């Protein structure tokens, strides 16, 4: 019985792999029809999801198209990505912290995600059609020298708070959204904490000590404990 189920699932997955996705392709066609060349790139995962990257100037228009023409009436979220590799490396992997201030990584070492991208920062937003599994992730490049994109609040008023958060966390402006006060951070907070180069002051003052105080789990081989103690001693 179990084998049968497994076989069926595999077949279904295989069918999905090769099958075309008419509904999502139709969605993409709606965007292409109304936005024209402003649709820069797209990525379709058959049966699962659709990514569309639009030109910066057409970002506000894309929201109106999504809501009014494509029937994607449910606004899920709006946020941003900083594609710059962290100058601090991955804290958890290093035994000690990187010296401060760290050397800035090369911009070119950033790898953009689905549907490509040319800028360091990207704004992304997810919208869906209620009652279906149709969902589109819209992306837009944020100009490096002037990080501003058009607002979405004319199409989805719920985007206002998301834009406020994206503004305080990434320092991205939203043209047309007049109320970009801090929403989570204290109003006097300086800096944009979700940008990769933002320093965590606690770590500057007191570096990450690496893994210390490793206690063996109950029932673990006590020999492992000895090894851990030796390793700890040699580090210090």
């Amino acid at each position, binding site marked *: 019985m179990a084998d049968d189920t497994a076989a069926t699932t595999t077949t279904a997955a295989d069918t999905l792999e090769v099958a075309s996705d008419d509904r999502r392709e139709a969605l993409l066609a709606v965007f292409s029809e109304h936005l024209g060349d402003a649709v820069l790139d797209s990525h379709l995962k058959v049966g699962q999801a659709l990514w569309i990257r639009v030109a910066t100037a057409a970002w506000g228009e894309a929201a109106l198209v999504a809501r009014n023409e494509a029937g994607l009436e449910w606004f899920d979220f709006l946020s941003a990505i900083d594609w710059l590799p962290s100058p601090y490396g991955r804290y958890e992997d290093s035994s000690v912290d990187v010296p401060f201030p760290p050397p800035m990584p090369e911009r070119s070492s950033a790898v953009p995600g689905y549907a490509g991208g040319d800028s360091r920062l990207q704004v992304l937003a997810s919208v869906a059609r209620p009652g279906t599994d149709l969902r589109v992730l819209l992306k837009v490049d944020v100009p490096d020298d002037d990080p501003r994109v058009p607002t979405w609040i004319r199409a989805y008023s719920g985007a206002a708070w998301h834009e406020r958060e994206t503004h305080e966390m990434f320092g991205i402006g939203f043209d047309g959204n007049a109320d970009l006060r801090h929403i989570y*951070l*204290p109003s006097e907070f300086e800096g944009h*904490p979700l940008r990769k180069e*933002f320093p*965590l*002051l*606690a*770590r500057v003052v007191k570096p990450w000590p690496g893994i210390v105080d490793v206690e063996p789990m109950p029932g673990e081989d006590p020999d492992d404990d000895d090894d851990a103690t030796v390793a700890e001693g040699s580090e210090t």
Partner: protein
Amino acid sequence: MGLVESGKMPKPLTKLLNLSRKYSIWAYQWGLACCAIEMGAAFASPRYDVMRLGVIPFPASPRQADLVVISGTVTDKIVPAIKRLYEQMPDPKYVISMGSCTNCGGPYWDSYSVTKGVDQIVPVDVYVPGCPPRPEALLEGIVLLQERIQNEDMTERWAGDQDRPEPIVVG
């Protein structure tokens, strides 16, 4: 109560008043994160039942409270509210800092938004360590605080925040 202000409190009266204060602590709950669940268990559930210790955990306002239990992650944004809360409480007042986050930032020690210890804002009388502490740990903190109240010199304590005794650390 001119006696306390004048500094001439008779010892038996101090003892009696301390006994009364000890067994009628009105505790304000200031739950900020997951520790508040353990605080709720300690304060509101029949299994732990803080009222048997003489603690009444439901004052209508900080102005009626003798004790505030700050439990959970203190962020920089809520700091002004905690400050105001503490200033609204009438003297003598006590603060229990419950959980690693409130004590020192805990797992959020390097966060950009978390205050690394509520003792940077208000004086703390009892630290309850743990992530989160069990309700028993909070109850022990309250019992230790009651012991301290029993042996307090009221004139000294009511004089102000100077010369505060060393804070108690549970465990």
